[in-house]
């Protein structure tokens, strides 16, 4: 009797935890909802129908990105299926979770390939994606990552493509912006332990040298989950720079970096990259949100862009999930349509044929994040970026579009 009672208690506890997780983390609950929707259709990898595999961090530190990818893929696939599918075949999706860990990413990849999936969207972060690029080439599986920006991801990898620009471009845009805005002395705070942060720092430094900017102060943190940046920004303030490049992810920008930088006496511009996407949901209630003025970042697209393609995507996403899509969503949505274009061009969903169609420079793709074709050598698209800034009246943080840069001069 006692055993039965405690078992029931455990189960009740488990369910209440699920309920709590659903209540407090709205982004995280979208992932399972999308999972369920996607798996309602029979997931047949062979025979009729085309199966797309998705690898994303649905749990763990970057769960917001996982939800962004699974929802956008869900939206794109349901649109495609409603309009008759690809080559008359319905598309099904298999979602897998990489937990933001390279070893788990490899497991997810192997599991998808063993189910006969030949076309994969994923993974989201550079660190995880780099764990499976070689395996994708060995198995002959097309890997189209929505948002892994590290330069090294697609170098000389036949089967690996990405929907986003590479870090060498993204860091250069930030340096370009600093030059245009007239800052000669700049500082950098970055994370030495992360592929993304370090890659952006390298490309920013290279571009700064080209544009004649002087990097006056460099500080680093040892991991991405550090919660105190006061010393780094105090050093920036004392060196007198008015422009600091800080490539981090939203989960530290919102709660820690910006407010601590202002508290440490740094008043100049904080410039970031696409990892800042999602920051307004992560600011601390009650903190002085005017700190977020003067924070700029580069991104792949902006939901307020008046381009009709962007507007129809934002409207469709809002109708389906009741929230504004972020850049990762836009890129994942584009990735699915890139597969559609390539499969139609190749005439089949055979991975090798799709690979050739994607790599063909004449395959011009026009989507939410711009019009572009792949560079056949690097598998990286040539595309532009937007520069955004945060604006705050003290009670909430909003994002506004500053500039759209199509190419660097």
């Amino acid at each position, binding site marked *: 009797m006692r*055993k039965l009672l*405690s*078992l029931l208690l*455990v*189960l009740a*506890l*488990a369910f209440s*935890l*699920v309920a709590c*997780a659903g209540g407090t983390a709205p982004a995280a609950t979208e992932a*399972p*909802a999308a*999972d*369920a929707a996607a*798996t309602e259709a029979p997931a047949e990898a062979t025979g009729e129908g085309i199966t797309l595999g998705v690898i994303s*961090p*649905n*749990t*763990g*530190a970057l769960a917001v990105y996982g939800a962004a990818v699974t929802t956008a893929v869900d939206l794109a696939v349901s649109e495609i299926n409603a309009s008759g599918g690809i080559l008359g075949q319905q598309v099904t999706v*298999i979602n*897998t*979770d990489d*937990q*933001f*860990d*390279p*070893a*788990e990413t490899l*497991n*997810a990849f*192997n*599991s998808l390939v*063993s*189910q006969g999936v030949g076309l994969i969207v994923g993974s989201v972060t*550079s*660190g995880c*994606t*780099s*764990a499976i*690029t*070689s*395996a994708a080439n*060995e*198995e002959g599986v097309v890997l189209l990552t929505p948002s892994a920006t*590290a330069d*090294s*991801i697609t*170098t000389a*990898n036949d089967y690996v493509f990405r929907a986003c620009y590479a870090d060498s471009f993204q860091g250069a845009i930030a340096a370009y912006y600093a030059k245009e805005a007239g800052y000669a002395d700049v500082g950098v705070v970055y994370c*030495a*332990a*992360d*592929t993304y942060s*370090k*890659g952006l720092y390298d490309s920013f430094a290279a571009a700064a040298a080209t544009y004649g900017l002087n990097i006056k102060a460099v500080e680093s943190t*040892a*991991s*991405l*989950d550090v919660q105190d940046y006061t010393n780094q920004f105090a050093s920036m303030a004392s060196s007198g720079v008015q422009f600091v490049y800080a490539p981090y992810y939203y989960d530290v920008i919102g709660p820690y970096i910006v407010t601590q930088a202002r508290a440490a006496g740094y008043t100049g511009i904080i410039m970031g990259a696409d990892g800042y996407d999602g920051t307004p949901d992560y600011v601390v209630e009650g903190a002085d949100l005017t700190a977020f003025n003067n924070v700029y970042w580069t991104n792949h697209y902006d939901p307020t862009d008046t381009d009709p393609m962007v507007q129809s995507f934002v409207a469709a996403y809002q109708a389906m999930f009741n929230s504004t899509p972020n850049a990762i969503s836009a890129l994942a949505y584009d990735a699915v349509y890139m597969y559609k274009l390539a499969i139609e061009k190749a005439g089949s969903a055979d991975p090798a044929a799709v690979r050739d169609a994607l790599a063909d420079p004449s395959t011009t793709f026009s989507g939410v994040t711009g019009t572009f074709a792949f560079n056949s050598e690097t598998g990286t698209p040539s595309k532009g970026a937007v520069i955004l800034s945060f604006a705050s009246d003290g009670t909430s943080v909003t994002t506004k579009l500053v500039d759209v840069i199509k190419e660097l001069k």
Partner: protein
Amino acid sequence: MIKNRTAQGYLLNTVVIAVLLIGFAFFKGALGGGGEFKLIIVPSIWQCCYLIILAASLNLSLGFLGQLSLGHCGFMAVGAYAAALLSLAAERAGVFEDKSGTAFLLVLAGCIIAAGILAAIVGLLVGIPALRLKGDYLAIITLGFGMIIVNIINNLPFAGQEGLALGSASASLYKNGLGFGTALKVTYIWVAIAVTLVCLVMMFMFVRSKYGRAIRAIRDDEIAASASGINTSYYKTFTFAYSAFFAGVAGALYACANATLSTSSFAFANGGILNSTFVVVMVVLGGMGSLTGSIVAAVIMFLVNYQIKNGVWVQHLPAWLQNIFSFPMLVYAVILIIVIMFRPKGIFGSYELSLRNFFSDIKLQRQNRLAQKLESKEALRNG
């Protein structure tokens, strides 16, 4: 007929392991070495192998010595990076060309042993100051050391981001050095199994030796042990380093199996199954003081983690169950709570599964339980 019971046990274990390996070889032949076998079963065996070594090695210091260490993955990171860098250096020096032949196997063996030794040295350096503390304080200081080790590796110019973790460099570990791709993992599966068996034999021999008896005495009562003439600080430091050695070997296998290294995999806050807390969970789940328990728990935790995330059968479950399964950490927590509630000692307690004594142990346990029941009935009737 062999009269010596120890020899009987050795013979039985050898026969069973040989039968299992032959069965595996047949199984491999029957499946043709492709598809699911190559992509799921073999990588799973590799991962089980390093998790088993890791959990069993932590059991030496947590279960047998009674010192809680929360930085075990730090030693694993040392081993992984040491093995990977050594193998890359060996390839650059031209010792081996492609991943085959005697030269490569020798390099591989050398890398694995060197990884263990380096991790043991780091373990010794950590252990000398850390083991002056006890209980919670020791847990905190080992936690700190685990983080320090990972951060140092991060900032080494030849090992951190610049060296190995970047995409191109991880691809280079895939092509060069000791990283195994999908096909090579099948070819060299015997390496993982052999290393695991050797490590387990070494650990079993250790806990049954004079050292094992000494550290169990220290665990049960440190003052009594030192009063009986046991040099407690020597035995504690030695065991800590010995357990770090095997964590380093597990790291070397990790580098082989994943062909990519990133320090975030060994960090304390890693979201996956591989972090220092999780290894402690495996040991507690299996039973502190039971190496066979650690083996079983490592395999169970791996399978649970793998299956609820990647198992095909999950797609056929009702939607509400899938929603729970999309939070793997929740499922582990529930399993842990249930096990600790009904078996606070862990699955095996301090019992070692033994093939030789398996049936007699079960019989003995049943008799014990019957006797207990009778006793409690008697007590009820009398009182």
